[in-house]
């Protein structure tokens, strides 16, 4: 009987993978529903004897089986998109059935968990420190230091909270990991709990991810005897982007409004229910089983550049020819990721801009494509890698519109705790609108003689509005409590800097802004 592998990842399902699987079964094939290889432009992809075919439709079934299909891509592991990767966190991607605990065990699962339990908790933390692993959720904080703080805190109860809120547009690695290799996340959580002395572990994920929730819950049920007495639970958010911020997440988990808390106290000391809590991103925790395997930490630390150690599951998204998941050691130039690995735009038009790091990340011009993928390297260019989503735009994009959207998004998702973000984002939309329509006339109030500081004979020109926008962005950057308000200026100001012509519409770009 022919063995056919078809992914049951949400993206493959959206492309019709269930019907396709049924069609192969009807032809008498044995069908395994595996995780996704991450070559998303080929989903739903059909794998037979290691060879791939995609994107496959029902009409392709016969041709694939009789060998006459023109959708073949050859041996999947030899395809450049896969061959060029260094998959550690996504080592099982495409190969195993996500909720099969046997598949997991057969591919090295639970080995780190077994090894760890012969070690002192402090020695576990030492290895995490030695690996150089930094948080993959955005801020890049050293994971070992966070764990150490929690481990050394005195408390009767401690918690592990996995941040699976993945709100950044252009990112999907957390989703793929939870849907494709849930036991690896569970193993990482169990190790974290052992290292810091936690009794309970939560996974907080978004309501937009029903498939990931179902798979995680099934996997937790099956893994219960292995990780006992640790209690593990999935909790679902309720459609608030800001709940990805760790303190907002903790409030939400406690059943409160998802307002950001001021730090200190750090969640590591006073987190969930006021108890010491590790909050880590899915990818951070999922990297742990590899690191805690024999010799894993050294191998991890050998990869990468400078202080960006190990590998990063990069997500290629937007208008891109070869979109999907590309895990590689830090250090590749951005242009290589976009043009060589991603194959440029899907539409075939020139790349105009890429946004790295989700809605709070700067827009990067192709002139900066030699930028090397690493935390410090990006920070030095006023950009951030965030959760490592790369969203590509072709020349049809209006960057003035994208800057406006950045402000609009911030206004919609602000938790409301601080003024620069809550009010500033609303004003930001208005100022950008005025720039784009060439400034504005004085209003009735400003024309009153008592209003000494306004000129009466002419309105405010677009260039003056730019001054206002710049001021506003400074205020948001330095006056906001969290990165939602604090980083929204990055996409706005980078768009204005590199593409001023997209803001000024009919009126001309002011001389000081032209290149």
């Amino acid at each position: 009987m022919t063995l056919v592998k078809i992914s049951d990842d949400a993206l493959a399902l959206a492309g019709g993978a269930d019907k396709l699987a049924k069609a192969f079964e009807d032809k008498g094939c044995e069908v395994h529903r595996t995780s996704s290889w991450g070559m998303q432009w080929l989903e739903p992809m059909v794998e037979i004897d290691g060879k791939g075919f995609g994107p496959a439709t029902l009409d392709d079934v016969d041709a694939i089986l009789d060998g006459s299909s023109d959708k073949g891509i050859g041996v999947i592991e030899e395809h450049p998109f896969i061959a060029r990767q260094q998959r550690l966190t996504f080592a099982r991607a495409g190969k195993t059935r996500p909720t099969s605990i046997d598949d997991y065990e057969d591919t090295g699962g639970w080995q780190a968990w077994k090894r760890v339990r012969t070690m002192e908790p402090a020695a576990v933390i030492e290895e995490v420190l030695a690996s150089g692993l930094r948080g993959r959720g955005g801020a890049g904080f050293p994971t070992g230091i966070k764990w150490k703080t929690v481990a050394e805190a005195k408390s009767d109860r401690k918690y592990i909270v996995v941040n699976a809120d993945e709100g950044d547009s252009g990112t999907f690695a957390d989703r793929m990991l939870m849907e494709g290799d849930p036991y690896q996340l569970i193993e990482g959580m169990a190790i974290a709990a052992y290292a810091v002395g936690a009794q309970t572990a939560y996974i907080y994920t978004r309501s937009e991810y029903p498939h990931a929730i179902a798979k995680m819950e099934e996997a937790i049920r099956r893994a219960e005897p292995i990780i006992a007495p640790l209690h593990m639970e999935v909790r679902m958010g309720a459609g608030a982007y800001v709940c990805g911020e760790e303190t907002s997440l903790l409030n939400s988990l406690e059943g409160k409004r998802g307002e950001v808390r001021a730090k200190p106290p750090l969640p590591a000391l006073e987190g969930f229910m006021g108890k010491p809590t590790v909050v880590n991103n899915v990818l951070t925790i999922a990297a742990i089983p590899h690191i805690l395997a024999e010799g894993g930490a050294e191998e991890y630390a050998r990869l990468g550049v400078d202080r960006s150690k190990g590998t990063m599951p990069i997500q290629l998204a937007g208008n891109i020819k070869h979109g999907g998941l590309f895990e590689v050691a830090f250090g590749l130039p951005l242009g290589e990721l976009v043009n060589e690995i991603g194959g440029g735009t899907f539409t075939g038009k020139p790349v105009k801009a890429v946004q790295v790091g989700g809605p709070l990340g700067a827009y990067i011009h192709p002139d900066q494509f030699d930028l090397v993928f690493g935390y410090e390297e990006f920070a030095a260019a006023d950009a951030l890698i965030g959760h490592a989503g790369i969203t590509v735009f072709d020349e049809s994009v209006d960057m003035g519109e994208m800057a406006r959207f950045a402000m609009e998004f911030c206004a919609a998702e602000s938790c409301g705790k601080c003024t620069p973000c809550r009010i500033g984002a609303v004003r930001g939309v208005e100022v950008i609108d005025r720039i784009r329509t060439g400034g504005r006339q004085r209003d009735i109030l400003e024309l009153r003689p008592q209003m000494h500081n306004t000129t009466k004979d002419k309105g405010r020109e677009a260039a003056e509005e730019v001054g206002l926008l710049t001021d506003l962005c400074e205020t948001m950057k330095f006056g906001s409590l969290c990165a939602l308000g604090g980083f929204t200026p990055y996409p706005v100001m980078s768009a204005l800097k590199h593409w001023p012509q997209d803001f000024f519409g009919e009126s001309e770009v002011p001389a000081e802004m032209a290149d």
Partner: protein
Amino acid sequence: MSDKSQRIGEIIAAHAHEEGPLLPILHDIQHEFGCVDAETEEMLAKGLNLTRADIHGVVSFYHDYTPEADPRPVVQICRAEACKANGVEQLMGAAEAAAGGRVKLSTVYCLGLCSAGPAARTGDDLHIRLDEKAITKLIENV
């Protein structure tokens, strides 16, 4: 005791052993009744020994909870950056025309399908690579 308040009592009891049970409770209520209305907030306040203001503060914070039930079927369309890069805004005219008054279109920011947008969600079903024809068909058939 009305049927509703009995059901809400049962939902509260089902989550009684959880730490911070309010969001799971609200999810169950939204799922079952299609909204979390003023009357429900009152009942929850009593059942959980909180004030109505506490409950309303939470309910009104999150996009997933609505104060009134909407009988229309819903199509969630992603309008975040990566889907914009793939042209979702150019589809909205056709989407609105197809929806008319019968279907509710709601905006979401990212469904995690960002390399294959424009993307949409109906219930637990996801849709990718939408063009004008596909989104019209999707909305008409929902």
